[in-house]
């Protein structure tokens, strides 16, 4: 095992240099392409996303490059428009919970005592909420639309960030450099932001990168409760969920939007990892 640890230092000898361009560069290009397609969807899409036709559940063919769904709508067009919906949704849908969770976690971990206990209580309560009843009540209270969707994502998503950050902050709080910063007369908020938070953000960044990908599937679940995506609006997660029943008879109806979600998730993770490792100063250019 210690060889393994030593290997970390001398790994340049064992790791072969990647001939092809860095994966995250490829991923970045893909994301840019996806953004372009999303923006240019109205011009690129061969059909209107909601145009129904009688040739339902057709496999990919000349007329419909990626086939048609149960209502005879062109899957390629729907996926193009879906990218537009999803790209707008997933960033806030994963971002808000991270921000709220990190701030609350940092305060709880740093202050400790009563605030820490109170945050833990609230986190336990939020995590214990009966999801179904909560979401239906949320729609009843806030009505449909992106606002209630983001409230739902935040209410359910902040907990894991708060817990992760709280543990990290409690460990870093006693670190030498934090004490030193105090000695040099920094005020508590300054210490928090400049010294404690950057460390805590490592765990958050790791989780956030994955959470972005997960947000797509979350949107599909919430659309069942009519949160956020209005019914019929093309959205990748909903397309997969709707086509689930056809998975073995007409697999492409699930596989295509599913593949899009996977590709988006992988690229986001690759670019996200690269950026976060860059900020951690380990720009090892993987």
């Amino acid at each position, binding site marked *: 095992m*210690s060889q393994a640890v030593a290997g970390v*230092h*001398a790994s*340049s*000898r064992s790791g072969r240099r990647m001939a092809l361009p860095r994966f995250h560069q490829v991923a970045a290009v893909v994301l840019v392409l996806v953004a372009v397609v999303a923006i240019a969807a109205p011009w690129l899409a061969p059909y209107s996303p909601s145009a129904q036709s009688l040739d339902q559940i057709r496999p990919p063919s000349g007329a419909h490059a990626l086939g048609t769904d149960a209502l005879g709508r062109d899957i390629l067009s729907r996926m193009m428009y879906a990218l537009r919906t999803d790209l707008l949704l997933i960033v806030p849908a994963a971002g808000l919970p991270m921000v709220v969770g990190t701030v609350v976690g940092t305060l709880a971990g740093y202050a400790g005592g009563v605030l820490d206990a109170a945050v833990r209580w609230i986190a336990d309560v939020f995590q214990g909420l009966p999801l179904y009843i909560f979401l239906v009540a949320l729609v009843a209270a806030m009505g449909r639309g992106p606002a209630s969707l983001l409230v739902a994502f935040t209410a359910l998503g902040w907990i894991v960030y708060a817990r992760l950050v709280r543990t990290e902050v409690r460990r870093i709080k*006693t670190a*030498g450099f934090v004490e030193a910063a105090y000695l040099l007369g920094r005020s508590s908020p300054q210490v928090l932001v400049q010294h404690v938070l950057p460390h805590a953000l490592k765990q958050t960044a790791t989780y956030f990168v994955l959470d972005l990908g997960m947000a797509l599937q979350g949107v599909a679940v919430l659309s069942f409760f009519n949160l956020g995506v209005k019914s019929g609006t093309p959205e990748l997660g909903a397309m997969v969920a709707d086509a689930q029943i056809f998975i073995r008879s007409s697999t492409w109806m699930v596989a295509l939007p599913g593949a899009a979600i996977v590709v988006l998730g992988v690229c986001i993770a690759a670019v996200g990892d690269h950026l976060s490792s860059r900020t951690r100063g380990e720009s090892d250019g993987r």
Partner: protein
Amino acid sequence: MAASSLEVEGLEVVTRAGVPILDDLSFRVAEGQALGIVGESGSGKSVALRATMGLPPAGTSVRAGTVMVGDRRVPAGSVTPAGVAMVFQDSFTSLDPTMRLGSYLAETVARHRGATIAAARSRARELLRDVGMTEPELRMRAFPHQLSGGLRQRAAIALALATDPRYLLCDEPTTALDVTLQARILALLKARQGAAGLGLVFVSHDIAVVSQIADVVAVMYAGRIVEIGPTATVIGSPRHPYAQALVAALPDLDRPGTRFLSIAGTPPDPSEFTAGCRFQARCGHPGTGCDQPLAGLDGRDHRHRSDCLHEDTHPAGRAS
């Protein structure tokens, strides 16, 4: 009386991208002797120590060189050559935060002496007393974050001594401490060197601290030893322009009110290392031919020498 010694010969450390930080560095210290290595940060002095321990900093690796401990030769880069221990600069981050001091020391003693747990624990208490800790029993159960800076540094030294080393490599052990604690730690190391015949390699950026403890001093600059010799002569009459500047930078208590002298510019980045003299850019009196390839001094020969082509034309160092 060839007392056995620790010899490092032809040490070469490179970054992952292949940029050499140390190329062909050699030095020697005998048992009971204290070798000081002084130089600005970034001169490669602590890299040299860590490479000797086979633990080069992250992102670098030992490409060549050998370590001789007494009569046993070990290829450089092999981890923890027997008989050699190391004390690090920031004792807070260099002690495992999850381990009580007592059990950490006892485990290390048990590993090196094959002693039973009870024997190892009593040895641990003895070590804590050796490094001057009061109420060792209380300290045994303490975690690093529960100790003050001075106590933590003593704990680090106790940990190093737990491996019964014959040579102790100290990487700026007192830098993080205030002056009074610094003096006590230096006295402690001096005592260990004398009593146990311990060979000491003491690295620091502070020439004053090194002069208090080192018999021989080597001045490092940009990965090379540029001057070496008995402490008194090197500090008394430094011959290399960089060494002279270092000594001149010391505040002179006899003449209060003199302005501090400082050396302009900053040490070169390893990627800009040249074959010739690497102090050229900051040297007060550049002569001709300074970019001829220089080899750097072999630190195993402790006679007073300087790695500068024009040393005789320079005014002698300040009369000590």
